[in-house]
């Protein structure tokens, strides 16, 4: 992992707290991550784990609300939490932009798609309507909308779901922002369209060299898109590292839960779909110790009452630098390979067990 100063986006100890009549809701509680240009970070977690709140904070969308925000959000060296409201407004859509989950409700029903794209362009560029229209058509064409010079005058409800999301992406990228936040961009779409949208995002990322944060609860999307993965639970990062490490050798029981609850049509019939028991925790009164302990099936493997009493730190995992986890389990690899993985993917479990033994004998050999 690079240091805070050299990364394009660097978030440090971000906290977003909402005071309510019942107490403080800690939607995001001490989140840190880095992202380089041209790279993609996947933020994964259940509903209510603080994914969207954190990304809205990067865009400064909580300004003017009662939210209490602390920490640092350094974009290209500028702390977005320190700039004035007007400065933040000028950066929105220009340096950072966002595409939302449901493009039907996220686009204004009373204005044409072209009008909304032109608005996004003209807010940040002092150009004529004509020039903005040319730019809007160009962007619609770029995201693969057929007959863009005609469709530009259509209203959002005249577009199909996939086309609307393409138009949203066109709107998000019309000012060529350095950072694009995609908040569950494929959730409202059907599966074939999902793949097209993800391909499009990857194409555009290569073309514009932008950094992308993709927020999702779909690990398939993460596997396809992300370079790094941040797993969030109850407003905190519980596992963070390169995508391959996280997906192949996860070290935190919550990540295991997410992986085992992904349906896999290609898997053989012996694999099972294992849901995570219980419900996401209340952010008002999070559980003591590790926030995941009430739902964690491996609490008994940790000596003493550690899971219930002490909040684990986010520390480097067994795979070395760059893979962080927040868990008391002493030997997560073995538990994962022997107990968790065989449940939902026996084939992969055998492979991983072999790999682990090989690694073990290697270590012994070195000693």
């Amino acid at each position, binding site marked *: 992992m690079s240091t805070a100063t050299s990364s394009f986006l660097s978030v440090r100890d971000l906290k977003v707290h909402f005071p309510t009549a019942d107490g403080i809701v800690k939607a995001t509680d001490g989140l840190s991550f880095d992202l380089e240009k041209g790279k993609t970070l996947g933020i994964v977690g259940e509903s209510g784990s603080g994914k969207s709140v954190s990304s809205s904070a990067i865009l400064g969308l909580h300004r003017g609300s009662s939210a209490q925000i602390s920490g640092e959000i350094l974009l290209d060296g500028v702390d977005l939490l320190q700039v004035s409201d007007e400065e933040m*407004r000028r950066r929105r*859509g220009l340096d950072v932009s966002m595409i939302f989950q449901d493009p039907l409700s*996220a686009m*204004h*029903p*009373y204005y044409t798609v072209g009008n909304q794209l032109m608005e996004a362009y003209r*807010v940040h560029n002092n150009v004529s309507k004509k020039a903005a229209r040319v730019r809007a058509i160009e962007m619609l064409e770029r995201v693969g909308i057929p007959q863009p010079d005609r469709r530009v005058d259509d209203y959002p*409800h005249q577009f199909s779901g996939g086309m609307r999301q393409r138009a949203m992406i066109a709107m998000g990228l019309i000012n060529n922002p350095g950072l694009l936040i995609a908040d569950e961009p494929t959730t409202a779409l059907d599966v074939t369209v999902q793949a097209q949208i993800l391909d499009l995002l990857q194409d555009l990322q290569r073309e514009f060299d932008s950094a992308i944060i993709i927020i999702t609860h779909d690990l398939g999307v993460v596997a396809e898109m992300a370079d790094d993965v941040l797993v969030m639970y109850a407003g905190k990062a519980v596992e963070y590292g390169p995508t391959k490490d996280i997906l192949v050798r996860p070290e935190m029981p919550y990540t295991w839960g997410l992986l085992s609850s992904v349906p896999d049509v290609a898997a053989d019939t012996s694999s099972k779909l294992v849901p995570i028991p219980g419900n996401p925790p209340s952010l008002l009164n999070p559980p003591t110790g590790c926030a995941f302990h009430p739902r964690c099936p491996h609490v008994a493997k940790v000596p003493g009452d550690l899971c219930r009493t002490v909040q684990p730190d986010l520390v480097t995992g067994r795979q070395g630098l760059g893979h962080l986890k927040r868990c008391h389990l002493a030997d997560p690899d073995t538990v994962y390979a022997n107990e968790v993985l065989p449940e939902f993917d026996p084939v992969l479990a055998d492979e991983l067990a072999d790999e682990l033994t090989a690694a073990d004998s290697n270590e012994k050999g070195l000693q």
Partner: protein
Amino acid sequence: MLAYVIRRIFIGVIMLLVMSLVTFVLFFASPVDPAQFACGKNCSPELREQARKSLGYPPRNQGVWESNIKGPANMWADFTKGIVAGRDFPADKEMREAAPQNVVHCSAPCLGYSQYSVKTVNTMVSAAFPITFSIALAAVILWVLFGVLIGVLAAVTKGSFIDRGIVGLSLFAYAFPAFFIGTFLLRYVAIKWGLVSVPSYTPIASGGPAKWAFNLMLPAITLALLYMASYVRMTRAFVLESLTEDYVRTARAKGVSGRVVLFKHALRAALTPLVTMAGLDFASVLGGAIITESIFNFNGLGKLAVSANNNYDLPVMIGIVLMAGAFVILANIIVDILYAFIDPRVRVG
């Protein structure tokens, strides 16, 4: 679109016919003999029968079929014919032939003839309508303009003292009846304190637009205040609701300034239901602002309706009821067509 408009107008005409029929039936279900009223106090049975004939009222005491069904039905048929083709009064053919010099022609759309005022209903209504229309127009401008502006102000300052003050005051205004506010404005603002002259209707043609508007001020405020209070609260609710919409968040995420987000994105969506309400409310006020007109002694449709009711002047009452109904039906059609222009999602289909 054109087919839709034609269909709506067709349905509107049918609704008007049904409404007029119901009005006739209701009036003749009453035990009072309208001919007695039309004839006046010093009325002999002969004069009363003459009045009955001349107005075309159905005969009394001839059994339910003759007096209560066939008679009113014939009268309704004559009335409907008069709307389309115009008619002559007295309604009875023999009476017209006996005294041709007294025949009054009422051209289409003929709403009837008032024996009491010795005028056609059309004459009376066309004298009263501009007054009511002026008050209604001034009032609708006041209540929509200020209602929406103050409502938006309350929405953007939600929870603050300004918001609470506005909500409290609008409840206050809503609670006061028009006769209190109107009387207060007339007695104190105009008469006792002399801040403005006592309003009396001045047509634009005779006094110019400034004088016309100035005289309308107090009646329009009286009429508008009640509506304004409810428009403030509705606007506040609609704007607060649309501020939470995803597309408003999108607009903010684009870097659009707060003012543009509020007026171009949030208010634009909130205006749709308000336009509908304003259209229908305006139409219902056009049928006569009875209390306001009575207080300020403006001889509009409302006052005409009150005096027609007091005098049991049936043709005038039927004429006003039908006109008021026609305004509401027409406003419904206009609002529905307007909707297609406001909301692009309605345009297709």
